[in-house]
């Protein structure tokens, strides 16, 4: 993809976030999609491309009354939406379609109208992980953490600071679920979930949704909102089993997706004004900072503990409060993208003054997949 050739012209979350028992999962998609279409001044007939995850493109297209000529049902976990943006940008740039709607909706807390998450007992994970007692992401995602801590001498206090700093960002955001300040002691005294991780190092469980609309940069100039341009994109997958990842101190999928996006954008780390790293659990920003090359290996814990990513720090990270404090419906990637778009539009609750480039990095499954999008707001 040529940097700056495609732009986001519509972006919105569901009107409400949190506990939404009166909406089923597909309606959360629709609520966000209708908000995004209103944001862009478009109707369903104006959309000719649909991308979504978990729900299928045919479900979303039919429900919203869209007749697409391009669809993408990539469903690789919470970073699926970064990958949809990448695929949509390529599709628009090559003329397969003109205007793409990417939707996410998830009744993660109320669990209304969502399919159950099951691991088939004949799958490799069903045979070689499930019999040993994992139960969902909180029991699996932190499995590499002790190896990472031992390898680099990272402390429990440093990882606790991830949650403390993100709560500081959340305090600035009226839509964040948790806004009261917390301390390292609060984190390390919260209920044990899966040692070494306690409750405040695990994401929220909420209901919500979000949607994005993309079109060519040329057409984007005619839309009501300030266009947010796509400068670079990357994606990869590694393994559906966390026990089989190559390196427990680093994600191979991160190391492919991140640098691919930086190369495509033609930028350096010094150019980045704002950063989102999908934080389903407190170690993910550490892996992300290192695997994307923002800090040397083993340095991310110290970097965060020294407040470099906190309000007032040199690298504002997860400025909506993140999955730890803002919201997390299960597939958080869409909310990270929404915050990058808000920052690039200049309308974020915790706006980074003068921000011109935002990097948005997602994870899917338990280090199974990754997608990175680099946004810019300067007209090409």
């Amino acid at each position, binding site marked *: 993809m040529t940097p700056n050739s495609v732009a986001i012209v519509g972006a919105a979350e569901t009107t409400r976030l949190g506990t939404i028992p009166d909406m089923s999962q597909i309606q959360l998609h629709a609520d966000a999609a209708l908000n995004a279409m209103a944001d862009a001044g478009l109707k369903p007939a104006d959309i000719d491309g649909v991308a979504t995850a978990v729900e299928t493109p045919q479900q979303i297209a039919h429900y919203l009354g869209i007749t697409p000529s391009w669809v993408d049902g990539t469903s690789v976990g919470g970073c699926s939406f970064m990958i949809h943006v990448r695929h949509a940008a390529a599709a628009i740039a090559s003329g397969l379609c003109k205007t793409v709607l990417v939707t996410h909706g998830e009744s993660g807390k109320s669990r209304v109208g969502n399919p159950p998450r099951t691991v088939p007992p004949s799958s490799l994970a069903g045979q070689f*992980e499930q019999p040993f*007692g994992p139960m969902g992401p909180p029991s699996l995602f*932190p499995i590499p953490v002790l190896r990472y801590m031992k390898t680099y001498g990272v402390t429990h206090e440093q990882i606790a600071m991830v949650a403390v700093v993100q709560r500081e960002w959340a305090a600035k955001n009226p839509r964040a679920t948790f806004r009261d300040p917390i301390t390292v002691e609060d984190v390390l005294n919260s209920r044990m979930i*899966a040692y070494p991780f306690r409750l405040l190092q695990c994401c929220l469980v909420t209901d919500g949704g979000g949607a994005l609309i993309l079109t060519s940069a040329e057409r984007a100039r005619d839309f009501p909102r300030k266009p947010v341009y796509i400068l670079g994109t990357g994606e990869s997958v590694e393994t559906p089993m966390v*026990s089989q990842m190559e390196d427990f101190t680093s994600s191979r999928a991160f190391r492919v997706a991140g640098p691919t996006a930086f190369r495509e954008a033609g930028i350096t780390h010094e150019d980045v004004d704002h950063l989102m790293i999908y934080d389903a659990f407190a170690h993910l920003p550490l892996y992300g900072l290192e695997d994307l090359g923002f800090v040397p290996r083993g340095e991310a814990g110290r970097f965060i503990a020294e407040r470099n990513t906190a309000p007032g720090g040199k690298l504002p990270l997860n400025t909506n409060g993140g999955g730890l404090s803002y919201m997390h419906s299960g597939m958080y990637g869409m909310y990270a993208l929404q915050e990058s778009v808000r920052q690039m539009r200049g309308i974020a609750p915790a706006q980074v003054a003068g921000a011109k480039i935002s990097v948005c990095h997602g994870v899917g499954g338990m280090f199974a997949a990754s997608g990175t999008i680099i946004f810019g707001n300067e007209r090409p």
Partner: protein
Amino acid sequence: MPEPARARPQPTPETQHFWDGTRAGELRLQRCDACAKVYFPPRPFCPACASRSVSVFAASGRGSLYSYVIHHRKVPGFTPPYAIAVVQLDEGPRMMSNITGCAQTPEALALDMPLEVAFEKLDDEITLPLFRPAKG
């Protein structure tokens, strides 16, 4: 009412040799005849060089504790807290397992401690490869 059991693996044609092995008291891995790569989980070809010429062999059953969590929530077949561990096998691959025969605490579960396989029969078909601290 019987206690709910832990998740039971369902072997496939490609993994049957592994489950036949644990039932016979062997931890069976595969080695590529072409490039000598030892790999896990089972499949009838080499994930490093794509050769279909691979051999099943009985591993030593020895390894070390690579990483783990101690899970504190209730799961059918388990009494929390219990460790969900990844074992570094001496032959190279890693596999998920549980650690038996020692306290399920950070103090008792030191990373890199030597382990040996301890087979636990689930039923007539399935025996699971668990691990315990190595003797001596």
